[in-house]
């Protein structure tokens, strides 16, 4: 199922795990989707280096850049989780409570139950692909920028605090 990773999941990534940390977000556009619109930087200012490291996290958390990354993440995973959990619970409950409905033939020996069961496999693969794609295009780059910014700020805070 390497396809989930997009056509560009080539040898480089497999052989070089550091590719991830260094180049995450860049070179990831596989032509199938538009790049995520740029997110404003979390911090341009350097004067708050004296702040305590704990405050840095509060500050980053309140920044527009972080809120944007968080809401992009939540807007995908909350509905996504609700959909697959409902679909799975519905499937299990129907299979146990209404087996006669599930036994209805569809085509040949294939019945509703078989279609629903294989449908669970299919939706799992589709949601996996959709999540990986969403994260790659909409989240990774902004999250990585935030990571470097935050780490720089915490380093500054730790250094300035002493």
């Amino acid at each position, binding site marked *: 199922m390497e396809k989930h990773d997009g056509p560009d999941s080539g040898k480089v990534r497999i052989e070089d795990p550091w590719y991830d940390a260094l180049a995450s977000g860049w070179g990831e556009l596989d032509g199938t989707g538009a790049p995520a619109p740029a997110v404003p930087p979390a911090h341009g200012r350097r004067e708050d280096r004296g702040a305590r490291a704990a405050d840095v*996290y509060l500050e980053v958390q309140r920044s527009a850049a972080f809120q944007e990354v968080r809401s992009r993440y939540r807007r995908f995973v909350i509905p996504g989780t609700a959909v697959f959990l409902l679909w799975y*619970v519905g499937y299990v409950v129907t299979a146990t*409570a209404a087996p006669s409905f599930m*036994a209805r033939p569809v085509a040949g020996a294939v019945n509703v*139950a078989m279609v629903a*069961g294989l449908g669970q496999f299919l939706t799992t693969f589709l*949601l*996996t692909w959709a999540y990986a794609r969403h994260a790659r295009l909409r989240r990774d780059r902004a999250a990585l920028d935030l990571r470097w910014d*935050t780490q720089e700020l915490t380093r500054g805070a730790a250094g300035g605090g002493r």
Partner: protein
Amino acid sequence: MTGNHQTLALLLFSVFVAITLGITTWVSRHRHGSAEEFYAGGRLFSPMENGFAIAGDYMSAASFLGISGLIALFGYDGLLYSVGFLVAWLVVLFLVAELVRNCGRFTLADVVVSRMGERPVRIAAGTSSVTVSVLYLVAQMVGAGSLVALLLGGTGGAVRTWTVVGVGALMVVYVSFGGMRATTWIQIVKAVLLMGGAVALTVLVLLRFQGDFDQLLRTAAQRSGHGTSFLAPGLRYGGDWTARLDFISLGLALVLGTAGLPHILSRFYTVPTARAARRSVVWAIGLIGGFYLMTIVLGFGAAAIVGPDAVRGSNAAGNTAVPLLALDLGGGAASTGGTVLFAVVAAIAFATILAVVAGITLASSASVAHDLYASLRRRRAKPRSEVAVARTAAVGTGVVAIALGLLARDLNVAFLVGLAFAVAASANLPVLLYSLFWRNFTTRGAVWSVYGGLLPALVLVVLSPVVTGSPDSLFPGADLQYFPLENPGLVSIPLGFLAGWLGTVTSAEPPDEAGHAETEVRALTGAGAV
């Protein structure tokens, strides 16, 4: 099974054991015993490697032989059971993998304590992790004993005893000498073998039916003696309403429990970044999904080619369906092809057991050393000695698992896997999700949610028909049965979430806003991740 099968199967077992011991020696030669190395294998595995290792860690012999056997005997209900094992990975992918990689270091407790009072939370999360691991481990050990005895044709207790002891000794050697690096490579080798074996058998089955899946289903239904109801739910889980509720409970435990299994969570620490963790899960979902799709073909294939009567005649639970299918596909019991295929399947099943138990032992020793020992000891031991503790804990886990495995040898422990998932879903998942997503979560809430899921799950099982009060119980003589379901998940999972909420709202301590900010920022960006 004839002598030829046994000799060849034993030979292949030995080859696999030799290879894995070779890996362990090679790995332990050049490495220093840092915690990073022992628990996380240096964190430099690639997503593909880790994806295979996750699949190798997750797909037990119960999946390979058990689910296909279930399909061979009960048709559709086996498929129904397998779906939960796959869908569960969406919970892992969406809510857990990346965030855990970013926030934690080695164990589940690491994620939670980043914003909580360290000691009580670590002890709680460590306790529940060890509980889950031991339950799962005992199920695997007992399964290993009966499986090897079955495949080698030995019926006596001696074969089973020595298998349990041997598997226990091997897993201790892998883990204490090779740590995460050796365990990971063993799981990768196993996953490749398992997928290879499954693909080969699936292709042979489909060739037998000229690639016509519909024809396969019709033959299976006809041969089963149940007709079309073989292809619909109800033969296994469709009894009275208690049995149906029981299956819903099991399904819920499977789908929510995977994300709380300690040996699965620890796999995300072996890759460098959250992105790599996500891509490993994508690989794992591909492999696991593909594998369960093949089990469907193998199960119905066994029903169509071998026939449920022959399967049931060999083993009442259906565990020999795939080996018997392999024997037939290879050309029958007297042929070389049949002998070889049978031995290969037996060896793969054995490799599967070894890889799974090694992963669980490692996770359990990490929880003992990193969470329990580190919280309960005096503050003088150095980090270096934590690895020594973990190695000792691996030996201890092995001894406990062997002892329980031998004690439970003749008991009906099929419920243990479902129970391990139920405990993971009730005790580990609520605390994990609350600490990652809930702003107001407090230390008391964390402790309550762990114990509030763990204790009801265990108490309900003791009061359930699997322990007393029915002919299939562990102790058929006694009667303590007050709870009708075999799997406690339906009740204990909501209780775990409820207890966490209740503990938080009644807590006098104000929520730690800075702690929450740190967890949230680190979880989503990877800032400060190790």
